[in-house]
């Protein structure tokens, strides 16, 4: 593949290596499977949701609703398993069906009403969190055997680190995301729409179906992320996961995906998540630095990558400029 398409991804990878190298230089303890295991476990739900966001952004859209969907999922599961006494597996299936349908409706509105994804998913954000609130405004603990079992599942890595079930799930979702993005017609269509909607339509890409599927996939993964989050916290809380959509967008962009769509990699998103997790881990290790530096550094990275992307677009436009038609 060509350098310009891989350049942002390569940059992310180099940044990750340098950052990790710097961390280790200062805190040799950070080079341990324990840290790696925790990095994956702590960011599992974010990673799962960010894979969905990657598809949305690749298509040139945006999904502001995922934080709310994660919260809704958690509350629904807690209430369904607790108050309603539904079998855990049934509750899990129902919640995934609900969230997927929810995403499909948003996708349909975006396509058929020809409205910007931003405002449609904003309504979705309000709606999903509102629904979570209506189910319960308290933090509802989840106490079912299934959860205990799943939480107890882990691989012990050499060096004592634990690769937990949720961490593994995230890696599985990333792998599945890569598979969908690069080895299915749907994946190709997502890139095509993000590249140029009109050309894609002329080349026979089913725009309506793909758009609906993209947002359905994003909400499905947000539902999955909600399950991961409830496993992580053993509770459902309607005020949870506020602003996760911003973190997910940041991870996708830092992972080298073009915010205007059409170019990027699911694998890059995983790197983006890991970089963001690394910053947090570093701050924890340091002990004197405050958590707000995370946001500032992420903001700076976000700006650098957006500026980098603009620069690349500008350069390629300039290179072609001389040959542009009238």
């Amino acid at each position, binding site marked *: *593949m*060509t350098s*310009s*398409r891989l350049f942002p991804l390569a940059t992310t990878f180099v940044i990750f290596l340098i950052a990790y190298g710097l961390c280790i230089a200062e805190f040799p303890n950070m080079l341990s499977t324990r840290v790696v295991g925790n990095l994956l476990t702590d960011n599992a739900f974010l990673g799962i949701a960010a894979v969905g966001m990657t598809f949305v952004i690749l298509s040139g859209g945006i999904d502001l609703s995922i934080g709310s969907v994660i919260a809704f999922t958690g509350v629904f599961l807690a209430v369904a398993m607790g108050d309603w006494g539904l079998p855990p597996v049934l509750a899990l299936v129902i919640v995934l069906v609900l969230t997927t349908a929810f995403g499909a409706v948003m996708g349909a509105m975006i396509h058929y009403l020809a409205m910007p994804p931003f405002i449609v998913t904003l309504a979705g954000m309000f709606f999903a969190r509102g629904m979570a609130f209506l189910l319960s405004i308290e933090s509802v603990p989840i106490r079912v055997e299934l959860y205990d079992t799943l939480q107890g599942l882990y691989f012990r890595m050499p060096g004592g680190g634990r690769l937990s079930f949720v961490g593994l799930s995230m890696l599985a979702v990333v792998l599945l995301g890569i*598979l969908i993005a*690069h*080895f*299915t*017609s749907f*994946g*190709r*269509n997502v*890139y*095509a729409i*993000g*590249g*140029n909607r*009109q*050309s*894609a339509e*002329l*080349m*026979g*890409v089913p725009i309506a179906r793909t758009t609906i599927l993209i947002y359905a996939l994003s909400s499905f993964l947000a539902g999955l992320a909600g399950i991961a989050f409830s496993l992580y916290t053993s509770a459902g809380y309607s005020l949870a996961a506020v602003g996760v959509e911003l973190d997910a967008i940041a991870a996708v962009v830092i992972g080298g995906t073009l915010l205007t769509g*059409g*170019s990027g990699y699911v694998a890059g998103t995983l790197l983006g998540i890991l970089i963001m997790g690394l910053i947090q881990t570093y701050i924890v290790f340091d002990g004197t630095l405050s958590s707000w530096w995370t946001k500032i550094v992420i903001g700076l990275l976000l700006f650098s990558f957006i500026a980098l992307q603009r620069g690349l677009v500008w350069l*390629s436009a300039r290179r*072609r*400029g*001389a*040959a*542009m*038609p*009238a």
Partner: protein
Amino acid sequence: MARSEPLLRAEGVTKEFFGVTALSNVDFELAAGEIHALVGENGAGKSTLIKILTGAYRRDRGKITLEGEPVDPADVKDAQKLGIGTVYQEVNLLPNLTVAENLFLGREPKRFGLTSHREANRRSREILSQYGLDIDVTAVLATYSVAVRQIVAIARAVDLSGKVLILDEPTASLDAAEVTRLFAILEGLKARGLGIVFITHFFDQVYRIADRVTILRNGQKVATRPIEGLERLELVSMMLGRELKEQEAHAAEPVDYSRKPVIASFQGIGKRGRIAPFDLTMHAGEVVGVAGLLGSGRTETAELMFGIAQPDEGRISVDGSPVSFSSPREAIRHGFGFCPEDRKLDGIVEDLSVRENVILALQARRGWAKPLSRKEQEEIADRYIAALDIRTSDREKPIKFLSGGNQQKVILARWLATDPRLLILDEPTRGIDVGAHAEIIRLIGELRERGMSLLVISSELEELVAYATRVRVLADRRHTGELEAGAITPDTIMRAIAAGEDETPGDRGGQGRATEIMAEGAA
């Protein structure tokens, strides 16, 4: 070439948009193994015709047969399945996908239910090798030149369809070597028995590659002619709708420019890939007509003069002092005005009222802190509504509800309100009704008499004859000649255009041959 049973035949194809006829009763025939050029000015109906053939539009009336069978493509995909493939000029493939992905989008080869890149890449290399193209098919399309992309697009269209290939201005942004390569490919496809429809506005290309040519004008077919034996001049005259006859020279007296004050002078300004460097001196009280076929560099000339694009070289001076325009704002500050060709995109601010559209440029020049009072605005708007006979029920009506001709008058009024010294009009009469047409021509004459300097770009030769005091002729992104007052007739302009399009202008045009522009620079 044209055999008895045509590959594709369209009969009496008619298409209307909201009561406006875009295509009227057009017949068209394409033989297998033929390259058929389709020519005509903007709005002639070329794109409507191909969109009907490719299923992008549904025709209102008429019949299309493919290999003798009546067909009715419902959409682009349907047409592809029938065997009709299209390569558009601009909306073309997806630069963010790889070459192989572009070739196989929508029909990816599968292995175990997943798309197989290896298979797609292998087949892509195979397909492209038929076109003599040995490139890395796993690289994104954006990394390749327009020429390569064009070939990939053709390869995709042929691979998908395989009977009829329609090319919409495929050479618009190619250089000479690339065009040669493309033509070799087209010859190869022709030999394979494909029927190729080729839309272009480059005459030499029509003569180089086409077997037959169909000329459209104002939604109607003028003629279909074999290229062999077709005079270049005759082709131009059919396109522009002029009879070939000697006409009386333009009534205006030759103007002694040395006695007219110079408003602005442009020396050696040009921009690589857009327009070759040219000299032009604009005097008060003259109308410089700009003639040339579509794509000859007319609009590009205006853009450099008005600061929309910045020249790579050359000098501009206004009132004898050097200036440089980094934006239209600065050109406007020096008393320039510009009515763009694309009224909808570049001219009207559609939701604003007629009044607001009229005062916009004047207000912008005064700055935001010095607003025109409501009363002043109304006076200005009313004055121009009356003076230009703008037909609107109300000066507060949003401009988008006005007809094209009236919108054009509002844009003219916008500039007249700034009292410009140099006014550039790009196709001021395109797409407007007959009445408004005549008024705008009359207005141009009046403005000239008042001492304004005007540059008017037009494809309507009669129009140029009516108002121009001299005519600058453009071809192939160069200023190739100039006609002085006294020598301006539709015929002479046409011959000058044809001579310019001819890359080796011979002396067969007689008195109409383009005069060179050297004298201008010395003035």
